[in-house]
């Protein structure tokens, strides 16, 4: 009986000490332009501020002027455009093993997902009204507008699946448009530069905004290859050798000299001379 008593007490302690899944922090709001709001499960909607904890199953909503960037425990980020609604449905991540999974629902607006440990393992997905988007890699921008859901691959392998079929984007710079859950995903098409320019402007601050953090006037970053000011961020454009023809010519000449030229026989020896 005593053992059972201990068990009951410990179970009660467990229940008290274990935070509900909904209260688990999965990330942080790293940049916020007003008005952007968060609704953690079971609590009231409140304006987001920089440094705000993002909670499992939290609903994030931006107004026509609001933009947000969220950074998650697995190092992935979400940049959220104005007039957007998302829910962090599921986020499980063990930083020691790097394992877990992530599911976000986008119901309205646009976002850019930049991958972290979970998407590198193919364990990140974004649900939209027209398709489920599986991300391996990867970096993807998703836009919902009156023409459907546009999924733009910026890096990685993006699997677009709905009730009518599946399409895979393997190459950066291609997009697929999906009209509805029961319409097959369209064929991949090259995204236009104008579309990318528009989305870059949409998914960050306007020139007069500061994302909730004032004071960033300059940045001091070493430049790639600059003597004395080294940087890790080098484009590594491949060096193209210009001596291929020279090397071919050298080999031809060497073989010609050694074998092609002919030698002269020694003069005949005559007896008595």
């Amino acid at each position: 009986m005593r053992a059972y008593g201990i068990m009951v007490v410990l179970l009660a302690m467990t229940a008290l000490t274990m935070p509900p899944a909904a209260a688990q922090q999965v990330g942080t709001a790293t940049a916020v332009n007003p008005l952007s709001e968060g609704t953690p499960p079971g609590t009231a909607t409140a304006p987001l501020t920089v440094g705000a904890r993002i909670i499992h199953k939290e609903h994030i909503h931006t107004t026509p002027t609001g933009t947000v960037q969220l950074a998650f425990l697995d190092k992935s980020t979400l940049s959220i455009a104005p007039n957007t609604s998302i829910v962090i449905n599921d986020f499980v991540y063990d930083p020691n093993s790097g394992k877990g999974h992530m599911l976000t629902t986008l119901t309205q607006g646009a976002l850019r997902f930049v991958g972290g440990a979970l998407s590198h393992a193919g364990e990140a997905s974004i649900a939209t009204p027209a398709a489920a988007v599986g991300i391996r890699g990867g970096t993807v921008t998703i836009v919902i507008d009156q023409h459907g859901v546009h999924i733009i691959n910026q890096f990685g392998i993006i699997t677009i699946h709905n009730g009518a079929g599946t399409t895979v984007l393997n190459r950066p710079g291609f997009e697929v448009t999906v009209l509805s859950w029961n319409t097959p995903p369209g064929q991949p098409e090259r995204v236009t530069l104008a579309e990318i320019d528009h989305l870059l402007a949409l998914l960050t601050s306007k020139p007069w905004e500061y994302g909730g953090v004032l004071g960033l006037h300059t940045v001091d970053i070493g430049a790639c290859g600059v003597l004395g000011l080294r940087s890790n961020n080098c484009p590594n454009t491949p060096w193209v050798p210009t001596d291929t023809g020279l090397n071919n010519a050298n080999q031809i000449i060497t073989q010609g000299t050694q074998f092609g030229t002919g030698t002269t026989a020694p003069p005949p020896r005559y007896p008595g001379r």
Partner: protein
Amino acid sequence: MQVELRRAVWRRFAGVLAPIALLVLSTLLASAQTPSDFTGNFSPLYQGLLSRPSDLTNTLQYAAAASADDIESAIGTYEQLLFYNPTLSRVRFELGVLYFRLGSYEMARSYLQSALQMHDITPDLSERAQDLIEIADKKLQVDQFTGYVQTGLAYQTNPGAGPGAQTALASGRTFNSNFFSRPDWNWFGAFGLNYVHDFENQNGDTFEASAVGYDAQEFRLHQFDVGVLEFRAGPRFGIPTGDPKTSLSIKPYLVATGALLADAPYYGGLGGGLTLHTNLGNVALDPYAEIVQQSFRNSSFYPLASGLSGTLSTYGLQASGPVVSSLSWQSRLGFGHASDHYGPYSYDVYAADLWLPWNFSFPGDGRVWTLIPSAGVSRWLYAAPDPNIDPTKTPRTTEWRVGLGLEIPLWRHLVLGTLVQYRADQSNIPAFTMHDLSVSAGPTFKF
């Protein structure tokens, strides 16, 4: 009785241990995702980014550190900084380079183009951004052309790779004195042209073609006037790997070559090959196998050249990757087997070459200089003694070569290309032992 007692004790302990285990487990699970546990496997900088995102020093340090090997995390962090100040050209430039490194050229282009529009952009950053935009623009074309055209002067101590004067042949015959080692100057011209047609499918299938040409006219020793032309073309088929960081493709190709020597038709070759491209992390690997039917033609200077005709098979591996920052490496390992009409000319050759191109700039100047040290060795093993040269010894030659190239930026696509090369051949046949120092320089237009 004893067994019953053990079971009772076990039940009691189990009753206590189970909830304790549950408590520990639940605490661990919960703590895996609470802010206090950002310490798990997180770097202190990333921990700081999550807990104090407005700490700009910490965020910048994390972005710079992540740029080395976690491109996406660096992107996320620079995009965070862009939220704080969207008018910083330098942040936009860094994002452009990061997307460029991912192969996301349309994103790279857009960020770089927007960097150019910022008021704070410096001339050197502007030049760097424009250079990358040009490359990104090409990568986004369905039909892509790249290449170079070069001309210049070269001085060689031994352009014919001949032996020293008075070198005696063991056969008792006399080596043609026109081919003894002598210095000369030459004018040379060279070009390389690469064409890629992108079929724009999700496998990344392309059609690729390349042409390389070289012509050198000696000032005095016209027996070494040489012109070489080589074409290669074939489709490249992408093979999905399921891993965005691992690429795989295969390319069958045709190769056609031709050469003039001493201003007369000398050599023609036709063949084909198969090459694979993949990468292991940052290292690109291109193994290949190629077979070419070679045809040499006799001429007044080279009356025995036709004996070199035959089949040349080569097998090799080209590889490249970064070393650190803007220093990279390229290498080639190869084996060749030539089966020639005249038996003694047949050979096996083993070759290894290494290049270490290093891009650098001077502070305040966006122009990129490239220094290219290189070294290589080949071991030539011929099939049989040549009675005309030495009837008793089968030639065995080791060729050593070292070089130092420097590409000096002049204006936009124009660079001054300079190259110093030293080559030494050591052979068991004195007539095949030689050395040559060459120095060349000339303007090079790269596009």
